[in-house]
C-alpha cells in the first residue's frame, strides 16, 4: 500500500498569529506541523502497520508544500514514522489560494505516483491556519478520486474504504474503492509522539525536494497570479478587554441575571 499524507507547516496557534505583506498572507515564523495533520499521519501509519509496515513494502510518504521552513513538517512526520518525505517548494507558490494549492499538490501526487501508483491520499480535516477545508475536496476533484472526507473512523479492507462521517443531524457510513482520498477528523485516533528511536531513524530517511518544474506546473498557474481569489484587506481585530469581574458572595447568579437584563439579553 502506498499512502501519501499531506502535512502542513502552520503558525503555532499558541502564539499570536499575523497576516502580512501586500497579499495579506500568513506570517509563517514560529510554525509547527499542523496538529490536525497528525491524525492523518497516525491513520496512515496504522494502515501501513496492519499490513506489515515498511518491511512488507508499505510506504507512507509525507508531502508538504511551502517555503523552506515547511521541510520541518516533513522531518517531524519522518520522526513520527513516515517512511519518506517530499517537500514541494518554489518561490512562485507564495500566496496560493486553495485552488492553486490543490493544483500544485495534485501534480506533486501524480509525480510521486509515477513509478508506482498511490493507493491512498490522507489529509487532516482542515489546516489550522487557513481553516477552509477546501483543499481535500479540490484535490479529489483534480485527481478524479472518490472523496471520503471528515472520517471519524476508517477501515481499509482489500481495495474497499469504509469510513464514518459525523454530521450534526446524522452519522453516515461512507464507502469507496481505492485509490481514494480520505480526510480525517481529530476523533479518529490518538496520534503517537516521536520517540528516540524514531528521531534517530528519521535522519536516514529520504526527503525529495520538488520544484514546480519537477512536477510540470507553470508558475502562472499558482501563487497569487494563479489564484482565483484574493484577500484585498486585512485588519487586526482589536483585542477584547476584560470587563467587570466579581467574586461570588452568594448572589452572583442574581447579579449575572441583572447584567443580562441590562444588556437586553433576556
Amino acid at each position, binding site marked *: 500500500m502506498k499512502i501519501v499524507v499531506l502535512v502542513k507547516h502552520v503558525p503555532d496557534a499558541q502564539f499570536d*498569529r499575523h497576516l502580512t505583506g501586500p497579499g495579506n498572507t500568513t506570517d509563517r515564523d514560529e510554525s509547527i506541523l499542523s496538529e490536525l495533520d497528525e491524525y492523518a499521519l497516525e491513520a496512515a501509519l496504522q494502515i501501513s502497520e496492519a499490513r506489515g509496515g515498511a518491511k512488507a513494502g508499505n510506504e507512507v510518504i509525507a508531502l508538504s508544500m511551502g517555503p523552506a521552513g515547511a521541510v520541518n513538517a516533513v522531518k517531524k512526520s519522518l520522526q513520527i514514522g513516515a517512511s519518506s518525505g517530499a517537500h514541494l517548494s518554489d518561490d512562485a507558490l507564495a500566496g496560493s489560494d486553495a485552488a492553486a494549492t490543490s493544483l500544485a499538490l495534485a501534480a506533486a501526487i501524480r509525480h510521486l505516483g509515477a513509478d508506482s501508483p498511490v493507493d491512498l491520499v490522507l489529509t487532516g480535516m482542515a489546516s489550522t491556519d487557513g481553516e477552509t*477545508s477546501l483543499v*481535500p475536496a*479540490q484535490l479529489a476533484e483534480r485527481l478524479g478520486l472518490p472523496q471520503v472526507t471528515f472520517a471519524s473512523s476508517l477501515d481499509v479492507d482489500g481495495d474497499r474504504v469504509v469510513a464514518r462521517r459525523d454530521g450534526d443531524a446524522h452519522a453516515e457510513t461512507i464507502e469507496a474503492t481505492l485509490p481514494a482520498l480520505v480526510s480525517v477528523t481529530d476523533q479518529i485516533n490518538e496520534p503517537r509522539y516521536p520517540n528516540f528511536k524514531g528521531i534517530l531513524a528519521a535522519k536516514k530517511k529520504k526527503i525529495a525536494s520538488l520544484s514546480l518544474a519537477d512536477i510540470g506546473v507553470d508558475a502562472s498557474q499558482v501563487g497569487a497570479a494563479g489564484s*482565483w481569489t484574493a484577500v*484585498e*484587506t486585512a485588519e487586526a481585530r482589536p483585542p477584547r478587554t476584560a470587563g467587570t469581574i466579581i467574586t*461570588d458572595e452568594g*448572589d*452572583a447568579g442574581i447579579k449575572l441575571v441583572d447584567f443580562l437584563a441590562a444588556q437586553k439579553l433576556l
Partner: protein
Amino acid sequence: MAKALVFIDNPGAALKKSSLELLTIARSLGEAAVAFNGELNDDVAAALGAHGATAVYRPSATDLDNYLVSPKAAYLAAAVAASGADTVLVENTADGKEIAARLGVKLNAGVITDVVGVDADGTSHKSVLAGSYTTTAKARTAVAILAVKPNSVDVDAPVGAGAPETITVEVPADAAANAARITGRTEKPASGRPELTEARIVVAGGRGVDGDFGPLEELADALGGAVGASRAATDAGWIGHDYQVGQTGKTVSPQLYISAGISGAIQQKAGMQTSKVIVAINKDAESPVFEIADFGIVGDLFKVVPQATEEIKKRKG
C-alpha cells in the same frame, strides 16, 4: 443583470432560516435563482417565490443523496450553466464547503468560505486566524462561489410573488462515477435546542463541570440557547464531540456566550472570541477566560448557574 444562484439541499417541509438569509444576499446582488435538490413541496416553492427566487433549477437525477458531495457539485455546475449565474451561494457547512470546493474546480471559479457579509460588488467579509483578523476577499473569476455563515444578514420581508418557474437540469451521466457512496445514515436524536453555530445564546461548559452538564442545560433552556463544550469536556466523554467549540471544533459568534468551568486556553478562545458578549464563571480567578470576559464571576458554577436559572425563570414569569 447579475444573477445569484442559491443552493438549497433537502429542506424538507419548510425552508431553514439560513436558506432565507442566502436568498436575501442573492437579491442584494441582483436576480435570485435557486438550485434545489430534494422534494419540493408547494409551501416551500411558494416561500422561494415570496423571497424573490425567479427560477428553481432541479436535478434530473433523484439519487444525489446516495453519494458524498461530488454528484451534487456536478449538478450545481450544470445549474450554473443553465441559469447563467455569476455568484453561487451555499451554506457554510462541511457538505456546503466541499460542494463549493469541487464546483470551484469544475467552473474555474474562486471559492470563499466562512463569509459573514457580501457587498453589492461581491466583496466578501470574513474573520480569519480564529477571529484575530477581519478580511475582505474577492473572487477574480467570472463566477464566484461563497459559503456563507448563518446569522450573517437579517432576512428581507417576503415580496409576495408567486411560485417561481421550475427548470430541470440534466445531471451528467458520469456524475456519480468515482463518487464515494453513502451506505448508511443514522439520525442523531434531536435535543430540541437551537443548532450550536446558529444559536443566539450559547452556554458552554468545560473541565469544571466535572461530568455534569445538567445545570448548564437548564440555564441554556431558560435562555432559549444552545449548549457547547470545551475540548476537555468532549475528550472526557461527558458530552458529544458535536458540541465542541474551539480551534478543532465549531466556531461560534452568538450574541451571548456563557462560559462555565472553562479556563479559556487559546484552543477554546479560537472558537468563541467573536461572540458579542462573553460571560465567564470559573473557580480560578487566574483563568485566562477572565481576560476576555465582559462579565466574570469567580465562583462555583454549581452554585452560580442554578441560581441564575431560577432567577431567569422568576423574571420571565
